[in-house]
């Protein structure tokens, strides 16, 4: 029998606020254990939470960006469970009346495009961190406790692991464009749980699902879904039944395994948190948030094509990340040459970032300096080949491209006398090739150009070399 995979994702996105969701503690990642703490996130008696305004704004922005209905009135609820890294004994979340509901995310895969519907987006707080692997006890770090999260829940609309991964990447792109999260999966600022089931192709009822946790990369999300669907099919084909449960993905063994016995019955006994008052999103706030929405990748790519005349493929690559698109536009502003700016950013810049594992904001060459370099090429001051050398040197210091060209003596030689002299030497030294050329082997022209460029260390103006060489070969 042929089976179809059915996947729905629950994504937790950590917001990059300065302070936590309900107290003023720093929300930054990677601080020394138990230093970003206060009476509220330590759950000391009498401490009261107050919601961070930016969390509401970020939730509204993500809701608008995904076509959600924004609830004018929403409330915060307590989700009750016991775990040592949750000092209050409940997580502040939303249950009834989430801030955003019923949205849509458009995703593209090699197999085509797809609209994935969203059930809801709600505000919640993160728990702390438990460290189990030292000694005989568990160690608790409360730093992450109370860090704001948005939970984005999709409908079970995805049918392949690729679609699930494309959905997640799209979501990551949107939160990064909005500037509300760094979207880093390895550091856990984007976390994903997958609900997976299978059913015979053509069936309308869903099969029993399992929930997979602990996938910390796009690749692992794909692998875990594929593994789990295969496991479901094997169980069903073998006459067994799927047990609804939570399973952990093991990225080393490339398998999911049951958390059986490690979780108690889920009964969170949600109720409205009496410490927090309702959140009202009024017209003024909706208007402000709409105004603050950035230009989204598809719109920006379309504008790059129509305004700058670069190919749609290039526009797509340049707009994958907002910072890269900003870098390209800033380069273009200085260079005035869209095609060259796009070629440099997509070529040398992206290659260097990949080789050195850098993010664009860590890159040593500012767009102003790169734009300056392109201007030097277009003005005929240096050749493309020399420009690549200058590009390498520019990564090592802060000097302008002009200063580097000057300092390293890399300026292009257009002096006809010097070029003529060098070509003469080459022709004298390569009599055999010269005869072959003159008896009709025209492709040797390139050989002479190469020899001349080599002799002049790439600094000769190629156009001048071509002209002089042509006339001298004729002679």
């Amino acid at each position, binding site marked *: 029998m042929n089976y179809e995979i059915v996947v729905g994702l629950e994504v937790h996105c950590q917001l990059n*606020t*300065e*302070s936590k969701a309900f107290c*003023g*503690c*720093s*929300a930054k990642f990677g601080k*020394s*254990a*138990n*230093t*970003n*703490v*206060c*009476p509220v996130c*330590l759950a000391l008696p009498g401490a009261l939470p*107050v*919601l*961070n*305004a*930016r*969390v*509401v704004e970020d939730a509204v922005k993500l809701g608008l960006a995904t076509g959600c209905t924004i609830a004018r009135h929403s*409330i915060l609820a307590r989700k*009750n469970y*016991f*775990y*040592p890294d949750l000092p209050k004994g409940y997580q502040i979340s939303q249950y009834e009346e989430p801030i955003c509901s019923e949205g849509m995310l458009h995703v593209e895969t090699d197999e085509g495009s797809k609209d994935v519907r969203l059930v809801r987006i709600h505000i919640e707080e993160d728990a702390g961190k*438990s*460290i*189990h692997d030292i000694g*005989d*006890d*568990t*160690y*608790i*770090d*409360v730093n992450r406790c109370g860090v704001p999260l948005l939970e984005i829940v999709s409908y079970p609309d995805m049918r392949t692991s690729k679609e699930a991964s494309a959905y997640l990447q799209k979501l990551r792109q949107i939160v990064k464009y909005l500037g509300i999260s760094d979207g880093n999966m390895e550091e856990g600022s984007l976390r994903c749980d997958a609900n997976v089931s299978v059913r015979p192709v053509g069936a309308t009822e869903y099969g029993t699902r399992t929930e997979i946790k602990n996938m910390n990369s796009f690749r692992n999300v794909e692998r875990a879904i594929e593994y789990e669907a295969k496991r479901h099919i094997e169980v069903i084909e073998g006459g067994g039944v799927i047990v609804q449960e939570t399973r952990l993905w093991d990225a080393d063994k490339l398998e999911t395994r049951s958390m059986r016995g*490690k979780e*108690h*019955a889920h*009964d969170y*006994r949600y109720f*409205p948190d*009496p410490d*927090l*008052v*309702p*959140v*009202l999103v009024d017209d003024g706030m909706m208007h402000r948030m709409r105004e603050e929405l950035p230009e989204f990748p598809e719109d920006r790519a379309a504008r790059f094509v129509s305004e700058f005349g670069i190919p749609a493929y290039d526009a797509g690559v340049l707009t994958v990340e907002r910072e890269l698109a900003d870098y390209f536009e800033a380069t273009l502003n200085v260079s005035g040459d869209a095609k060259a700016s796009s070629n440099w950013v997509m070529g040398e810049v992206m290659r260097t970032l990949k080789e050195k594992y850098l993010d664009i904001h860590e890159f040593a060459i500012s767009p102003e300096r790169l734009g300056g370099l392109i201007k030097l090429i277009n003005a005929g001051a240096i050749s493309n080949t020399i420009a690549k050398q200058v590009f390498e040197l520019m990564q090592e210091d802060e000097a302008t491209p002009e200063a580097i060209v000057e300092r390293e003596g890399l300026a292009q030689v257009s002096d006809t006398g010097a070029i003529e002299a060098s070509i003469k030497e080459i022709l004298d030294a390569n009599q055999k090739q010269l005869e072959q050329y003159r008896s009709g082997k025209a492709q040797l022209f390139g050989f002479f150009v190469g020899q001349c460029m080599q002799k002049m260390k790439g600094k000769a103006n190629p156009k001048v070399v071509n002209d002089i060489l042509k006339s001298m070969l004729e002679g």
Partner: protein
Amino acid sequence: MSVTKENVAYIAELARLKFTDAEQEKMTSELNMILHYIEKLNEVDTEGVEPLSTIHDQINVLRADVEHTPLSNEEALRNAPDKQDRFFKVPKVIG
């Protein structure tokens, strides 16, 4: 509405409380007394009344996103029953 002894045992487990059999009986009867007392409210006609999520009439009590971390690690750990280095220490959660 009333609760059974089984309900009480279940709630006790969720709350990580241990009761003897006699205590469970007592809890069941006391909880039922409370529930029956509250049931009096059912006599009120609530047709068309929005559910109340809070007794305050305030809305949007929000604070600006400004960082202020008031406690040091030593202060945070001062009342901890058990600690080590910079951490709270609890019995092993998973083995």
